[in-house]
């Protein structure tokens, strides 16, 4: 039953995306040309990575508002490492980005796990701390294209089997997390810890530690996205991706992730991100001022959360509440 509901949400969203593409294509057929669709996917790649991480955090009844700041800080760190040591091979840079992001995520996770500080407070704090740290590291200066090595900039754009490497990385991450979330005990633990923390505790799951791992994974993905973002746009600065954390939450909500935890899929998060990505890419094409984008995504969030709520009402968890109210 629950599984069918989830499937229908993803089917619904896929339908909405196809419809959206159809409307755009009816006036601007070039938009749905395969090459353009690849570039739209590529543009949305960082959002997809962040949305998957954020989804896992939200599953465990937490929220991570520091993802965008984490992305910017990690991006700045790897850019500065690249400037200092241009010879460092890209795989090392990527490993560095993932570990740096994971460390920042662990910092959030430890505070939530060990000190039981509400996640929204922790990540509000670390968001501003990370941003400030970028300023301290860079002294407010930008790192521009000419300072970065060609290998550093070229890697995400390099074509492999017809698709950019950035797209391949994103697809690999999506696949990896589909497997992790549906086929491993850790994945099950994320759902259990958020679906019913008490039941999870009795089932032998350490809820705090599960939340810690969620933050770590979310941080690692933000770190990876940080390298990809900085190398693709070939610039790193303090305000990089400012305000992006809420777009990421929006992608999750549109993707059917329940903000109260326990419900959501990797595929849904990806589709939610793609939905927003297509809108932002299509607006200039269909000649609507890009200033409409904010209002459109805002309306999409409200509609999506209303749909989420009506889907959740059928669910078993609510029965208890109804019984409570009946007495």
């Amino acid at each position, binding site marked *: 039953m629950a599984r069918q509901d989830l499937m229908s949400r993803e089917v619904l969203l896929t339908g909405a995306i196809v419809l959206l593409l159809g409307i755009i294509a009816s006036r601007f057929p070039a938009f749905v040309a395969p090459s353009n669709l690849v570039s739209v996917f590529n543009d949305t790649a960082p959002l997809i990575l962040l949305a998957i991480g954020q989804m896992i955090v939200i599953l465990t009844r937490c929220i991570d508002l520091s993802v965008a700041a984490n992305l910017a800080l990690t991006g700045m760190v790897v850019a500065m490492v690249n400037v200092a040591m241009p010879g460092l091979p890209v795989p090392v840079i990527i490993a560095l980005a993932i570990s740096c992001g994971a460390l920042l995520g662990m910092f959030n996770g430890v505070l939530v796990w060990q000190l039981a500080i509400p996640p929204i407070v922790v990540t509000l704090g*670390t968001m501003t*701390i990370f941003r400030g740290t970028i300023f301290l590291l860079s002294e407010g200066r930008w790192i521009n294209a000419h300072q970065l090595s060609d290998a550093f900039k070229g890697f995400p754009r390099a074509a492999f089997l017809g698709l950019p490497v950035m797209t391949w990385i994103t697809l690999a991450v999506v696949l990896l997390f589909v497997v992790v979330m549906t086929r491993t005990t850790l994945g099950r633990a994320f759902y259990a810890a958020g679906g019913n923390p008490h039941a999870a505790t009795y089932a032998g799951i350490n809820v705090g530690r599960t939340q810690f791992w969620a933050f770590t994974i979310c941080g690692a993905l933000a770190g990876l996205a940080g390298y990809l973002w900085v190398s693709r746009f070939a610039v790193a600065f303090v305000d990089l991706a400012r305000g992006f954390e809420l777009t990421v939450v929006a992608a999750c909500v549109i993707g059917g992730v329940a*903000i109260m935890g326990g419900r959501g899929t990797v595929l849904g998060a990806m589709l939610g991100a793609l939905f927003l990505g297509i809108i932002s890419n299509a607006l200039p094409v269909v000649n609507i001022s890009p200033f409409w984008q*904010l209002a459109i995504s805002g309306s999409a*969030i409200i509609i999506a959360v209303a749909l989420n*709520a009506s889907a959740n009402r059928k669910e078993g968890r609510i029965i208890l509440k109804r019984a409570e109210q009946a007495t």
Partner: protein
Amino acid sequence: MSDTTRAIPDRLRSPLDQRIKSWETLLLAVAIAIFITNSFMSPFFLNAWNLSDMTFNFTEKAMIAFAMALLIISGEIDLSVASIIALASTAMGAAVQIGVGTPGLVLIGLTVGLLCGAFNGFLVTRMGLPSIVVTIGTMSLFRGISYIVLGDQAFRGYPPDFAFFGQGYVFWVISFELALFAVLAVIYYVVLHRTNFGRAVYAIGNNPVAAEFSGIRVARVKFILFLLTGLMSGIAAICLTSRLGSTRPSIAFGWELEIVTMVVLGGVSILGGSGSIPGVVIAAFVMGLVTFGLGLLNVPGIVMSIVIGALLIGVIALPRLWERWRLQAAKR
């Protein structure tokens, strides 16, 4: 929230002991420490006019923080406040272009604020949607409308007498905004700590089901709180627009998180159910003092945000670390 079991005390703590160990006292100590440090660090700090200027750092945010405190105590949150400022300011700016005078502008600012609050309240209390997501949505929507109206343009040309709200002084160094801040602080103190309505807010935050069974109209109280938050955002929009003298769609960008920080720093539990207005007032001063003091020392704004962020986590983490250390020491 923490799972540690506490020993039941054999007598009540004395009121004095309670007061000394309260959050507000801790915060007040922090505020005084910052104040003293600032006066030693910069020769320009202890100057009535400079200190008066300092208050502009927080008065508008604090006005919203009062209503936000009530909302968070009741277990909800409103992340759209800064966007309500943008929308209200845009509406006032548009009205100026067709020649509306100051009283009309104030009315428009307040009405837009109330309408936005009502929209949030409707979605949360009638449709039963989680407020954090709804207000992330309306945050984009409200500011999005401002962007649609204004794009990269700005509204200017506010009437001269409109400037009073953000730039006027009531008495000597007491600005209109500071006076309004003080009056609102008293009103919110009375409402939260001295009325049935305030009791209801705490009751709802602690246990909404129990509150419902006790005859509190939970949905209506929450709706009123959203209305209040919208109204305060409208008031803040009037003050800020009047102070800046122009409206851009990016006005007050990112304030929602600063306001939530202020409320949480003031000792309001983000999980609902506890907190006080004096705490929020002191937190407003702490944030204002930190920003202003570091500003006098030519520390860039972004570095101040590190201090605010560390303060936010630190003031919550330190008592818990202390508690944990004490428990471990007691076991040994």
